[in-house]
Every structure is written in C-alpha cells, then in structure tokens.
C-alpha cells in the first residue's frame, strides 16, 4: 500500500481480520480491560448514546528488513478505518513502510501474576549463553 494510498484494499493480514466491531469490552493488549463498553453518560447534554469504536493494537514496520513493532493503540469501527487511523496517527513522519492492526481482544498474553513461574525455566541455564564459556578467553576469532 502506498504511504498515503487508498487503504480500501487492506494489506494481506488485515483482510483476514474479523471486521465486526466487537460488542464486548475490549482488553488492551497492554493489559487491563479498557472501558466497560457501556455508553458514556451523556444525559447531561442530550446527545444520544453511541456505539463505542472498538480498540485496535497497531504494529509498524519501520523499514524493510525489520519486524513490525507495537506502536500503540487506537479506536476504529473496522479494519479499514483502523488502518487509515493508524497511518494518520503513527506514521506522520515516514515512521513506517507497513502497518498491522489487530483487534485488541484477539491478543492473548501471559499472566502477569505468574511472572516468576512462567519465565523461570531459562534461569540457572547460563550455559545457553556464550559468556558461560570462559576457558577460550584470549583465543582469537572464538
């Protein structure tokens, strides 16, 4: 897709995204459940209740050869709009050559409460690092 081209035909991955705006409270990939998706309290000034736009996580590839990296999140009613918004919000200065948008609720993440046990297996396995092997110190090209 051209940097400012028409994102009407979304990039490959995005076309597979379920475009129906989720009706449940979205969970930000960063963590907490954002927003009980109940409409805002608008009675005070007479506006009618709106369907909130769902939450999307945005990943930007800064240049060819690099991975897409999480840039942030945004709200949009569907994938095509999410891509447009992501372009305007996260690539105003040529920060990217490709964008992925993913419904925040589609992301599964590890449980922060199990930090220790979930990640403990590499501990005590120093031998997986080159720095473990010291006898070769001083030997060239090793």
């Amino acid at each position, binding site marked *: 897709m051209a940097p400012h081209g028409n994102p009407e035909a979304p990039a490959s991955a995005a076309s597979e995204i379920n*475009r*129906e705006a989720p009706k449940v409270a979205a969970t*930000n990939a960063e963590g907490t459940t954002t927003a009980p998706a109940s409409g*805002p309290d608008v009675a005070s000034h007479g506006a009618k209740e709106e369907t909130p736009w769902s939450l999307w996580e945005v990943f930007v590839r800064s240049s060819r050869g690099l991975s897409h990296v999480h840039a942030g999140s945004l709200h*949009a009613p569907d994938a095509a709009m999410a891509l447009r918004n992501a372009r305007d919000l996260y690539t105003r200065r040529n920060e990217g050559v490709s964008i992925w948008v993913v419904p925040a609720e589609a992301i599964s*993440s590890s449980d*922060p409460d199990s930090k220790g046990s979930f990640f403990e297996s590499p501990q005590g396995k120093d031998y997986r690092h080159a720095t473990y092997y010291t006898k070769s110190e001083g030997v060239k090209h090793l």
Partner: protein
Amino acid sequence: MASQNLQSVPAELSPEEQEREAAGQAYFDRIISEDSRIEPRDWMPAAYRKTLLRQISQHAHSEIIGMQPEANWITRAPSLKRKSILMAKVQDEAGHGLYLYSAAETLGQSRDQMMEDLIAGKARYSSIFNYPTISWADMGAIGWLVDGAAICNQVPLCRASYGPYGRAMVRICKEESFHQRQGFEILLELSNGTPEQKQMAQDAVNRWYAPSLMMFGPPDDDSPNSKQSMAWNIKRFSNDELRSRFVGMMVEQVRVLGLTLPDKDIRFNEETKKWEHGPLDWNEFKEVLAGRGPCNSQRVERRREAHENGAWVREAAVAYARKQAQKENAA
C-alpha cells in the same frame, strides 16, 4: 520508599485477599525501588492508579484543547508555508492527545468517558490554553515559550514509572521539538522585520511569559501531590526546579531573538546555582484553573460542538462496518 507507599489494607478483605494485596504491594515497591517500570496488568496501589489517571487524562485534554488557540490562525497564516506548518502542528497535538488517551485507557477508564468529562466541564486541562491568541506573533510565542515549557516538563516524564505513559511521552517529545523551533523562527523573523513586527513579537512574548512559567504548576511548598508523585517516580523533578531550568534556557534564547523577557527580577543565584524569576500571580493561575480564565467556556463549548457535530460521522462509520460485516458473512 517502601514504607511511604504502604497503604493500610481495608479490614473487609479476606485473609487470602489481604495476602494478595501485601504481595502486590511488595512487588510494586520492589519495582519502584529498582527504578523499573510498572505495566498495566501489574498490581498497583489504588492511589497510584488514580494519580496517573488524573495526570494522564489532564495531559490528554490539554493536547486536545491546545489545538484551538492555534487553529484560530490557520486560515490567516501569512503564507502557504506557515499554514502548512501550523496545520501539521495542530495535527500533532491531536495525535498527542490520542497517544495519551490510549495510555490512560490502560488504567481502566474509557476514552469516551474521558471525553464526556471534558465536554461536561468536569475535567481539568492546562491553564495556558485558556488565554486568547490575538496576533500572528502569538503562534511564535506559543511555539517558543509554551511548547518550550512543555518539553522541559515532558522530557523527564519519558522516564515515568508507568510504562505506557513513558512510552507516549517518548513519542510526543520527539515530535515536540519541531514545534518549539518553528515558534522560535516565527519570532525571529518578526523580530528582524519592521519595527511594528518586532513590537508585535515583543508584545506576544510579554503576554505568554508568565502563563508559560505557571505551566510548571504551583510552587513546591503549595504543591500537595508532588512529593508522592516523586516518590512513585512519576515526576522526576519538582515544579520549581523545572521552572528555574526553563528560565535559564529562555534567558539565553531571548538574546538571539533580539527581544526581552518581561521580568526584571531574573537572576542567576550563585549560591544555589539556580535561575530565579520575579513573582508570579498565583491567584490568576487558580482563577484560570477554576474555570474563570479569559477563554475557558469558549474552549469547552467549542470542543463539545465539535464532538457532537461529529457524532453522525462516528455512527455512520459503525453502521458501514456492520453492513460490510453482514455482507461478508452472507457471501
């Protein structure tokens, strides 16, 4: 530090819950004492969450309301180049607001709710945006002084202990430096222009100087939340410290502009090694913050209008998305 952050555990919690709270607090204290970062799904004290939510949402609102004083001049910018620059800057402010709303959302408040609070007049934003922009030179003074003060404030916030806030600030700071430079350039050109243009630049600096110093918040002895925010590594420097640093930078830069700062009490204190400035009108600050500034009602009203007039667009987008989804399902 740990003892400062310790909160009394409410009595109605079950023993298991109490244990979880205590473990959460211990974990939180350790992260803070290691100067590491708290992430959204980590346990955090309720007061920490509340403080962050208040600060980040006020910051977001400031960016959004901050679009107005400058948008006021887009149609009257003196050249196409200046118009393009100003539009890019106003667009940046919108972007900054959105980064910050996203960060605030990770704390459990919806953006829609924050927007509602803003247009209902329930939320605060930086007092600076309640002053009018009466001449083109104000675009220069805002960029140089207001964005300059904002940068001074925001650079240390890139290291705020709350991950999403720090990350939003990194992004914002990168973009903000263009804002200050373009403002400086506007003032420099006016200052080197006709006597009337130079006078216009000086007048803008005279009006924006004190309000921009007040952007750093009340003096340290009158800033009740500062101490706790610093203990939590949200703030890294006190209001007065940042203000003094800012004054020092402006003293240098105003000479390059060929203009003066409207403060005859500015001096470098050799003993404290700090820049000092004349007294500021903190009553005015409180009045503006309390909603009685020159443009408060106009700014909120404008935002409310824009939000409400845009409702049909948001609804149409939702309806379109729904229709497309149905079509796809049927196919």
